[in-house]
């Protein structure tokens, strides 16, 4: 358990640092690369949480596909690849109190809600089979709905981005 806590601590520190860089750096491409770090950290956390399949999916879909989309988006909009001064709003400071307030409330709720509750020790790794049983069993309807969402997203993206 100690090893897991140490791993959690290291990865969490990296993730928070990376996330802060994502929202503060002045270069779109660098922000995307920092985001990769955060997403990879999240994948590592999933592994600690005994969710291998989700971790793999995270790597494939996020770090693979979504990041490529981001980079393409950056290139296609010819946002400057190098540093930009004005990546932030004039009213960016509004974010600090909003986010701070939200964080305070969330922390308060979590601490009062869960306190020192431990996660079950040496829980078995959730196998892909179990997940698929759930998806294609009780959650089949959402799965269909999701398929339509994806289809609509694909068509929508084509229609929107088409030139003529």
């Amino acid at each position, binding site marked *: 358990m100690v090893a897991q806590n140490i791993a959690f601590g290291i990865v969490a520190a990296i993730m928070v640092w990376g996330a802060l860089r994502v929202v503060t750096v002045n270069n779109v491409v660098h*922000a995307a690369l920092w985001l990769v770090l955060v997403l990879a950290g999240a994948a590592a956390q999933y592994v*600690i*949480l005994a969710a291998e399949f*989700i971790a793999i999916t995270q790597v494939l879909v996020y770090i693979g596909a*979504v990041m490529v989309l981001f980079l393409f988006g950056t290139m296609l909009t010819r*946002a400057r690849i190098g540093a930009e001064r004005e990546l932030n709003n004039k009213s960016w400071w509004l974010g600090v109190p909003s986010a701070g307030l939200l964080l305070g409330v969330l922390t308060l709720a979590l601490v009062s809600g869960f306190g020192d509750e*431990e996660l079950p020790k040496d829980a078995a790794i959730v196998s892909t089979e179990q997940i698929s049983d759930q998806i294609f069993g009780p959650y089949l309807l959402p799965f269909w709905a*999701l398929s339509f969402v994806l289809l609509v997203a694909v068509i929508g993206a084509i229609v929107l*981005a088409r030139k003529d």
Partner: protein
Amino acid sequence: MLVNQFLILGAVLFCIGVYGVIARRNAVMVLMSIELILNSVNLNLLAFALRNGSVDGHVFALYIITVAAAEVGVGLALVLLVYRNRKSIGLEELSEMKG
């Protein structure tokens, strides 16, 4: 491992994402911040899945990843469209909704 360590990590990431959504001017950066938020939610779902010994959280995490992919696709298409029409993806300039 405490439940809270994951939940609070999720909360921190969520709030960083919120800050990003509010503070960023570039639409692509806003989308990235939204990705941060979605990931923090996933982290919560998986922590709860482990706590409750149920697989449902995993299913929803997968669904969220899917929706996030769709969202980024459509979002970037929109950004592209905005860019074509205005030669800029600064969100500040999109203020037609001004009352």
